[in-house]
């Protein structure tokens, strides 16, 4: 099991991931907002697009930083550009990644940091898996990545992460929301996908696609 990328390639890969994530968010604004309108207040797509614009605008500055600092700065940009609930949650995730990023970024070490970052998101939102939130995608995806990376290739681990994100999102449909604004509609949230889980899945897929391509591996769609 090797490094995620060559040390001097880290920031280039990060930049590709950032661009891919922002591209996905911008392309899916309407879909995310539609999901949010059904059980929330309909602004999830617009909120994350503000983050995407801010991140793309700052991409040059970010790429001049060491990777941990770039992650932290990106987190703060997300927090300040988004507001709402998703800003602090995604921002906390990026800042936690940056603060704990391993010096020797082997896939295994990154997997541990990824899982810790998802726990930080849970603490910030005082939430846990099963409450119909982004955690229903983030937590199982990070776990699948860690479990799979211990025994297999990076490509297989990324595939496991994406698969877990897919099933995590699907699992939010029958859930009754107990956190976030969807909690206010109670029973009526059942039968709808959670918009935060949907955006989390989009982001993870985009990152996995870039990492697979940079490792010359194909990701099953």
């Amino acid at each position: 099991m090797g490094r995620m990328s060559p040390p001097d390639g880290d920031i280039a890969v990060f930049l590709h991931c950032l661009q891919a994530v922002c591209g996905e968010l911008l392309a899916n604004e309407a879909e995310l907002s539609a999901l949010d309108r059904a059980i929330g207040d309909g602004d999830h797509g617009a909120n994350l697009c503000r983050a995407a614009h801010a991140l793309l605008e700052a991409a040059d500055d970010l790429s001049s930083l060491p990777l941990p600092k770039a992650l932290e700065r990106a987190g703060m940009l997300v927090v300040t550009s988004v507001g709402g609930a998703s800003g602090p949650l995604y921002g906390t995730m990026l800042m936690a990644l940056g603060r704990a990023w391993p010096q020797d970024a082997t896939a295994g070490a990154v997997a541990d940091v990824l899982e810790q970052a998802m726990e930080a998101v849970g603490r910030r939102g005082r939430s846990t898996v099963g409450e119909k939130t982004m955690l229903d995608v983030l937590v199982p995806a990070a776990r699948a990545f860690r479990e799979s990376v211990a025994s297999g290739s990076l490509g297989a681990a990324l595939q496991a992460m994406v698969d877990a994100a897919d099933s995590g999102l699907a699992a939010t449909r029958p859930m009754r929301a107990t956190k976030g604004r969807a909690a206010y509609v109670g029973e009526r949230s059942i039968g709808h996908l959670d918009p935060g889980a949907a955006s989390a899945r989009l982001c993870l897929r985009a990152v996995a696609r870039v990492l697979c391509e940079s490792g010359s591996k194909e990701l099953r769609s």
Partner: protein
Amino acid sequence: MSKFLNEPRDAVVEGLRGFARCHADEVVLNERPRFVRRRNPNRNKVGVISGGGSGHEPLHAGYVGFGMLDAAVPGEVFSSPSPDQILAAAQAVAGSPGVLFIVKNYSGDVMNFEMAAEMFDGETRRVLVEDDVAVENSTYTVGRRGVAGTLVVEKIAGAAAEQGADLETCARLAEEAIARTRTMGVALGGCRVPTADRPNLEMAPGEMELGVGIHGEPGRRRVPLQKADAIVSELLDAVLQDLGTPGDEPVLLFVNGFGGTPLMELYLLYDAACRILDERKVKICRSLVGNYVTSLEMPGASVTLTRMSDPMLTLWDAPVRTPGLRWGG
């Protein structure tokens, strides 16, 4: 629902610019990061700061001024402000007595104010307003929403701070106001966020949404429209059931419009509420009727009751000079 707009995404800041120009003798708008503060902050008293998504005007910026808030932090429409805005507002008005943050209980607001408090170099206390009885409170939910009762909390805490109360006392009085305040609302239609192409709540004519929130988000149930007396009776039932029978203690009766209901109808609802409370032997000691905590152009209203202790009455009656609320010497 057509709107007066230039660019939809500029609606919040352009509205704030107009607000600050119109009330330039009292308030100042800081654009980056965005907050509204008193023109002449008093750093020798507890700073009282609130904020949240825009679209609820005059809440919160309209209550910046003598006897109420020191600063208000507006987010995008129906979306929490970010920690850097809240932090900058606190730094602009706070002195050694510290800062009281009055936060409506929404997960976004709670998290952003929490991050700001972590970054702020000074003493802070935070109270969470959760007066809406429409949403059941349980260990599984994030708790109740903060709605129109927020105005009562801002008035009580703001008056206490103006009189020189320390941070602990201001926080305790705010908590007391929260514990004694309950609200329930009803919508007759939806509202449209300026950047959205559709309303948040789509309703057929002749329907109403009972227990609606202040973002056009669904409430308890969708039912056919009833007579005003029956609607007010149901709202008051829910509020009184939760608040407990006030006994001899008189109440503040606050009928709040959501932005799309004429004052005539709000006073009609107030009249109904007075008759119903009279039948139930509940004594009304203070009243407030108008569009104070709105949900853009949403037609609808909420009814708030606060059980008033003598100290709270004194604080409620204390002078206030803000763009949105004004009385006393």
